[in-house]
């Protein structure tokens, strides 16, 4: 055990620090948020965002980008609020089918050497269309079990926090500790060398996409558990939120450099930024703008810490 922190630890320290600073600011503005219920309210919507961020991270770890994340989560939400409740078997089949479609996209993108941005752009229209067909107007109802799961009140920490930690651990085990995870990140790092080492890049990419599909499906289900009903446009902003979450968490667009724990922290930071702004009583016109400013500040902080790290290394 060395005492000097590894690069991975530094990578994680920065998002963790920005989350802590933001949380401290929220508590300072509104001390009553420092309670079980307060924390639950603050982080409630973080669970689906964290799941979607992990899904996006899996895609980004093979150097691709999914622009259909938001519409796909919306589609899943619509399925959950209709089929999964009224006819669980059909619902499960549809969701399993959509995960298979995701895995297949990975295969197609790999075999034809297609740009993932365009394929996912096209798929975003497809998912949006399917969602509109399912629920032309906002409606549907969440299945009882998911509703009770999401509103559960575990001891010690609120559900939102427990779920986020659980997601981070599971994603960490899959992406950082399993051999499949190493393989997936290896593709992002150097596809050719993974190929030369005798692994099937095709299978690994399909697995990455399939896993991403699974996490995105969970995101949609969790979202409906919180909102109780669904709408074809319910999660459109998740596309950009999930990308921002991965980057805030220390991930990178290329090179297979991702961090699942960081991604969950990034998602929590983004959720908290919204609450922070409403506590600040900022002018409603500038709410969105301030969210952009927070993103910039957090990333500037990251640059600052990276510089410090660099200086340490040169010493």
């Amino acid at each position, binding site marked *: 055990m060395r005492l000097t922190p590894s690069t991975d630890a530094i990578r994680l320290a920065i998002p963790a620090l920005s989350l802590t600073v933001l949380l401290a600011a929220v508590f300072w503005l509104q001390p009553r948020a420092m309670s079980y219920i307060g924390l639950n309210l603050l982080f409630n919507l973080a669970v689906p965002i964290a799941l979607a961020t992990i899904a996006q991270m899996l895609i980004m770890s093979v*150097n*691709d980008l999914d*622009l259909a994340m938001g519409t796909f989560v919306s589609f899943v939400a619509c399925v959950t609020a209709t089929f999964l409740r009224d006819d669980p078997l059909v619902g499960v089949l549809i969701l399993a089918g959509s995960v298979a479609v995701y895995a297949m996209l990975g295969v*197609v993108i790999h075999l*034809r*050497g*297609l*740009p*993932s*941005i*365009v*394929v996912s*752009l*096209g*798929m*975003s*229209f*497809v*998912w*949006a*269309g*399917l*969602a*509109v*067909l399912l629920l*032309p107007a906002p409606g549907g109802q969440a299945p009882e079990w998911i509703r009770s799961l999401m509103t559960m009140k575990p001891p010690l920490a609120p559900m939102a926090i427990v779920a986020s930690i659980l997601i981070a651990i599971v994603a960490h085990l899959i992406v950082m500790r399993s051999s499949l995870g190493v393989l997936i990140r290896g593709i992002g790092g150097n*596809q050719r060398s993974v190929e030369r080492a005798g692994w099937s890049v095709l299978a690994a990419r399909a697995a990455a996409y399939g896993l991403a599909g699974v996490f995105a499906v969970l995101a949609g289900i969790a979202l409906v558990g919180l909102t109780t009903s669904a709408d074809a446009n319910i999660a459109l902003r998740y596309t*950009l939120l999930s*990308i*921002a979450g991965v*980057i805030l968490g220390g991930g*990178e*667009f*290329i090179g297979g450099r991702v961090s699942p724990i960081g991604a969950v922290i990034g998602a929590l930071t983004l959720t908290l930024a919204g609450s922070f702004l409403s506590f600040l009583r900022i002018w409603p*016109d*500038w*709410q*969105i*703008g*301030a*969210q*952009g*400013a927070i*993103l*910039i500040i957090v*990333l*500037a902080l990251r*640059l600052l810490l990276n510089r410090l790290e660099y200086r340490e290394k040169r010493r």
Partner: protein
Amino acid sequence: MRIVDRLSRAPWIWSWLAAFLVWFATIMVTGGASTLGLSQAALTFAAFSIIVGIGQMFVITLGPGNIDLSIPATMTLAGTVALKLMNVDNAMILPGLATAILIGIGIGLSNYALIKALRIPPIIATLSMSFIIQSAAIWTNRGLRIKPPNFLADFTTSTTLGVPNVSLVALVISVAAWFLLEKTVYGRWISAIGQSMPAARMAGVPVDGTRFVTYVLSAVLASLAGYLLACFSGGAALNMGTEYLLMSIAVVVLGGTAVAGGDSNVPGIWGASLFMFLVVSMLNTYGLGAGIRLIMTGLIIISVIMLAGGRQPGAR
């Protein structure tokens, strides 16, 4: 045979072919009655995607990770502020245009400042920037809908010799962009940076200056498109740029520009923009519902990229 061979290797041919097929399929249904109307509408609506698409193309050419997500917000802000300034007064048209362009320059400047000074990935930098711009637009707009000056409203909605004026504007910009890309050293520079930034730097290409100019160019084209679109649609609306986020990316890539950067082409953007509009109007003509229409649009985009793609195996 050689011509066919050469044509089939031109990256832009697929989008043109697809646009033509869809155009033909739509006309067949209506029995040729709407040929002129459809073509004019397609040219008009495609013009806006072409203008923003060219800006996006320059940015994407810079290489992986370079993308401008602030285009929709820039369009909205430029349209809103320009219309407010002109205030239905024909004499204020040029100051309005100048303001729109200045806004574009300002946004491009701030975008690149974030990318360079804070080393934020361009996607996130332009995304954060777009939040701030969007807020500024909400703040200036205040839900008002100011009409454009009469002359501009007429200009953007009428035709010259049967060709819509906005598409003529798009044509002038496209020719300029093509010239910039193919005939000037700046065009060589952005391609060089897109192919390999370290190599370009070693070769003495002013990497920062070139990237800076490119982001400014993209923002200026977006604000110009916003200005024209606001005049065309009889007033600026806060959501008027929304659909151009995905549209600008789609037309660039469907048009045959490499997503990995370093290889761009202008004619493809025309084919792809026409195609994107024609697909929607074809599906409308067939009387399909919104859901089916979206699904078909998506499937058609994917099939076009599958037919045209696979040119560079291993590319992202």
